[in-house]
C-alpha cells in the first residue's frame, strides 16, 4: 500500500501542471482581477471600439461600463449573445447601449438593470431579448452569480425573497465553481490554445475605430461584431454549424426543459410591471433560430417547451401591451439560412430587418 501511495504521489505533477497552465493563461479571465474589464470599459466609454475581445467576464464589464456612464442611455438592451446584433443603427440619434451578456438568464436582466437603478440612471426604453431557456429551471446558467448582490437587491424590490439562497452562499458557491475551472480539462485545453495564440498575436485586445475587422470587435454601443472568418462564412458552412448545434445533446441550455419555470415567469412578469410602473417603455424581442435548428426544435419532443415559452412571452406582452419583435420560428421572422452566423445567432442585417419599424418606436422614446 505504501508503494502504491508513493506512486500516486508521482502523479501529483499532473494536476499541478494543469493548475499552473490554467492559472497562468486564464483565457476567460476568471481570476478576480478587475484590471482587464476596467481597461476594456474605459476604452468603450471613451467611444472607441475594442478589437480581439474574447473570453472575459461579461457581467463584470457591464458593471464597469454602467458605473462609468456619464449620461443615461435612452435605449438599452437586456439579452444574451443572441441579441448582441442589436446596435445603435436601429435607433439613430438616440443614446443607445446594448447590455447583452452571453448565456443570459433572468437574474442577469434584473441584476444589470439594478446597476442602472443604483446609479440613478433611468432609460426610456428597455428592449428585453427573451431566449427560451430563461424559463428553463435547468438551463445550467450560473454566470449571473457575479451579479448576485445586484440581483438579490432588485429581487427584493420586486417583492420576491425565495427564488434563491442568500447572496453570500451563492457567491461562495460561485467562487468554488470558478476555482474548480482551474483544474478542468476543458479549461486546460482552452488555456493551451490561448497561450499559443497569444504568443502569435502578441496583444490581447486593442482600441479601434473600425466597425469590423479580421478580429471580433466589441462596439462602443455594446453590440458585437464577429471575427471575419465567422462573419463571412458560406451558407453551406453556416448550415453545417447549425447542424452541429442542432445535434448537441441537449441543445444549448435546453436540457431537461419539461415545464416552464413558474418562479422565472413570475419574476419576469414583475420586472416588466416594475418597468412600466416607472414609465419605462418595454419591447420584447424573440431572437430566431436557424431553420435547421428550428426544424429540430419543432419536431423533437424534448424541445416542446420552446414553443410554449414563445406562447407565454406573447401572452405576457399582450398582458402588458408590449410590442413583440421576431419569433423563434425563422419563417415567421422571415429569415433564411443565410441570415444566420450559426445555429442560434442571427446576423446584424437580419436583426435590422426585424426591427425595421423600430426607428419610429425609438422616436417615440423622445416624446
Amino acid at each position, binding site marked *: 500500500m505504501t508503494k502504491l501511495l508513493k506512486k500516486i504521489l508521482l502523479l501529483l505533477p499532473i494536476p499541478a501542471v494543469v493548475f499552473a497552465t490554467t492559472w497562468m493563461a486564464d483565457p476567460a479571465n476568471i481570476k478576480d482581477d478587475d484590471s482587464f474589464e476596467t481597461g476594456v470599459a474605459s476604452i468603450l466609454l471613451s467611444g472607441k471600439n475594442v478589437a480581439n475581445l474574447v473570453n472575459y467576464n461579461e457581467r463584470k464589464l457591464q458593471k464597469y461600463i454602467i458605473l462609468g456612464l456619464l449620461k443615461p442611455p435612452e435605449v438599452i438592451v437586456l439579452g444574451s449573445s443572441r441579441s448582441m446584433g442589436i446596435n445603435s443603427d436601429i435607433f439613430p440619434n438616440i443614446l443607445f447601449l446594448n447590455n447583452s451578456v452571453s448565456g443570459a438568464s433572468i437574474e442577469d436582466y434584473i441584476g444589470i438593470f439594478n446597476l442602472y437603478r443604483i446609479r440613478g440612471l433611468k432609460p426610456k426604453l428597455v428592449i428585453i431579448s427573451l431566449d427560451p431557456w430563461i424559463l428553463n429551471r435547468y438551463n445550467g446558467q450560473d454566470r449571473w452569480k457575479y451579479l448576485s448582490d445586484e440581483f438579490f437587491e432588485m429581487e427584493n424590490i420586486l417583492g420576491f425573497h425565495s427564488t434563491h439562497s442568500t447572496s453570500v452562499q451563492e457567491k461562495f458557491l460561485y467562487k468554488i465553481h470558478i476555482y474548480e475551472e482551474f483544474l478542468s480539462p476543458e479549461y486546460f*485545453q482552452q488555456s493551451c490554445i490561448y497561450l499559443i495564440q497569444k504568443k502569435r498575436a502578441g496583444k490581447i485586445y486593442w482600441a479601434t475605430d473600425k466597425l469590423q475587422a479580421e478580429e471580433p470587435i466589441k462596439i462602443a454601443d455594446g453590440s458585437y461584431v464577429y471575427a471575419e472568418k465567422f462573419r463571412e462564412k458560406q451558407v453551406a458552412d453556416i448550415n*453545417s454549424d447549425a447542424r452541429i448545434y442542432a*445535434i448537441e445533446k441537449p441543445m444549448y441550455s435546453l436540457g431537461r426543459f419539461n415545464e416552464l419555470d413558474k418562479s422565472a415567469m413570475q419574476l419576469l412578469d414583475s420586472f416588466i410591471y416594475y418597468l412600466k410602473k416607472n414609465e419605462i417603455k418595454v419591447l420584447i424581442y424573440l431572437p430566431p433560430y436557424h431553420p435547421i435548428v428550428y426544424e429540430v426544435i419543432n419536431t423533437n419532443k424534448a424541445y416542446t417547451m420552446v414553443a410554449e415559452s414563445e406562447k407565454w412571452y406573447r401572452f405576457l406582452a399582450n398582458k402588458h401591451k408590449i410590442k413583440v419583435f421576431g419569433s423563434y420560428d425563422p419563417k415567421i421572422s422571415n429569415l433564411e439560412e443565410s441570415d444566420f452566423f450559426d445555429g442560434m445567432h442571427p446576423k446584424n442585417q437580419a436583426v435590422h430587418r426585424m426591427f425595421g419599424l423600430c426607428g419610429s418606436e425609438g422616436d417615440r422614446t423622445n416624446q
Partner: protein
Amino acid sequence: MPFNSLKYFLFLPVTYLVFYLVGERARWSVLLAASLLFYATLNVPYLPVVLILVTTTTYSFGIWLDQAGTLKAKRALIWGGIGANLLILIVMKYLPFLSGNLKELSALLSLDAKIQQVRIFVAIGVSYYVFQAISYLVDIYLEIEKPERHFGYFALFLAFFPKLLQGPIERAGDLIPQLRCRYEFNYDNMRFGMLLFTWGLFKKVVIADRLGLYVDAVYNDVHAFSGLSLLLATYAYAFQIYMDFSGYTDMALGSARLFNIKLTRNFNSPYLATSVIDFWRRWHISFSRWILDYIFKPLQIQWRNWNNLGTAGALIATFLISGIWHGASWGFVIWGGLHGLYMGCSVFYKPYQKKLHDALRIERTEFLKFCQIFVTFNLVSLAWVFFRASNFADAMYVVTNMLKGIYGVRYFISSTGKFNILAVAISLVIFIVVSYNVTKFNFLFQNKPLFRWILYYALLFTILSLGKFGESSFLYFKF
C-alpha cells in the same frame, strides 16, 4: 455517474478506501452499498424497483430450483423464473415498442382498438442484469452451479457497479467465488487496474467522442449528405462504437481489478475478424457466449433434424433476438437479422468457399486474410447503419446513397474544426501503435521505470489535451 465523469473519479477511490479499511466480513456490504449509490446517482426512478424485483425473484427461484425434487417441478420453476425475468424486462423496456406497433397495426387494419402508448420505465442496464439472472437460473437448473444462499453476495453478483450497466455479462460461477474471496492488497492488480482504466478513458474521451462529432453531424441529418460523407460517417461510427464500448469495458475491468476481481474480457480486435462468425467471437464476447449457450445451442438441438437449414435458422433466430435485446426498435431488429443472415448464409457457402480458395491457391495467404478482413468489416459496417440511424427511412437513405458521389465531404471533414481532425488523427495513431506493441510495452513496463513513467505522463496529457470533455454518456448505456 458515467465512468468518464469527475464524480466517478472521486467515487471509485473513496469506495476503494472504505473497502480497504473495513474488516473482511463487511467488504461485500461496502461494495453492495457503493453499487446502490452508483445507481442512485443515475436518477432513474424505476431502477431500484427493477433491481429489487429481479434480485428477489431470481434469488428465490434459485433456491426453489435447488430444492425441487422432481424434474417436472424443476422444469416448471425454470420456466417460471425465466418468464418472471422476461416479464420484468418486457414491462420495463419493451411495452412502448409493443404498444406502438400494435397501435399502428390496428390503424392499418382499420380496427378501432384503443391502445394506449406507454412510456419506457427503465432502459439503462436492465437487459444486462436480466440476462445475468437468467443465466444464473439456467446454470442451477443444469446443475452447473449451486445457488448462492447469502442474499448479500447474490445481490452483489447482480449489482456489482463496474459491470452492471454495460457488462461484461458475468456468470455466477465466475464472479461469486471472486466476490467471496478474501481480499489482499495486490500492487500489480492496482497498477494494472489503473492503467486499464486510463486506457479505456483514452479510447472513450479522445477517440470515440471525437469521432462521434463527425458521426452525429451526418446521422442526425442524413439527407443533407450523400455519397462518400455517408460512407465515411458509417466507418467512423464503426470505430466510434468500438472505442466507446471497449473503452467502457476497459474502465469496468480496471475498476473491478482494484478489488482483485477479474471480469471477463469483452473485446479482442473485432475489426480484424476474418468472418462474421469470427467477429462475434471477438465482439462483446460475454454477450456472444451468452446467446450462444442459452439461445443458439438449445435452438440448434431442437432443429437438428433439419441439418444446415436448422443451424442457419437457429443463427438467424438467435441474432434476431440479439437485435431485440439491444433495443426496442426495428433498426435493432434489422441489425440483428442482418448478422443472422450473414452467418446463416455462411453455413451453406462455407464448403464451396474452401474449395474455391484451394483452387485459387490463396488459402492461408496474407492476401486472403486481408480480403476477408475487408469484406467482414464492410458487412459489419453495413449492419451498423441500421443500428445508428434514427429511423428505417434514414438507414435506407444511407445504404442507397453511400456510394453516390462525394457531395458534402469537405463540410463533413471540416465541420468539427481543425483541432478535432488533429485529435482524431493523433489518437488513432497512438491506438494503433499501442495495440500492435502491447507485448513490447509489457517488456518496458517490467524493466524501465523511467520510460514507463514517461508513457504514463504522455497518456494522461494526451487525454487532457485532446479529450472531449463535458456531458457524454456511453453508447451502450441504453441497453
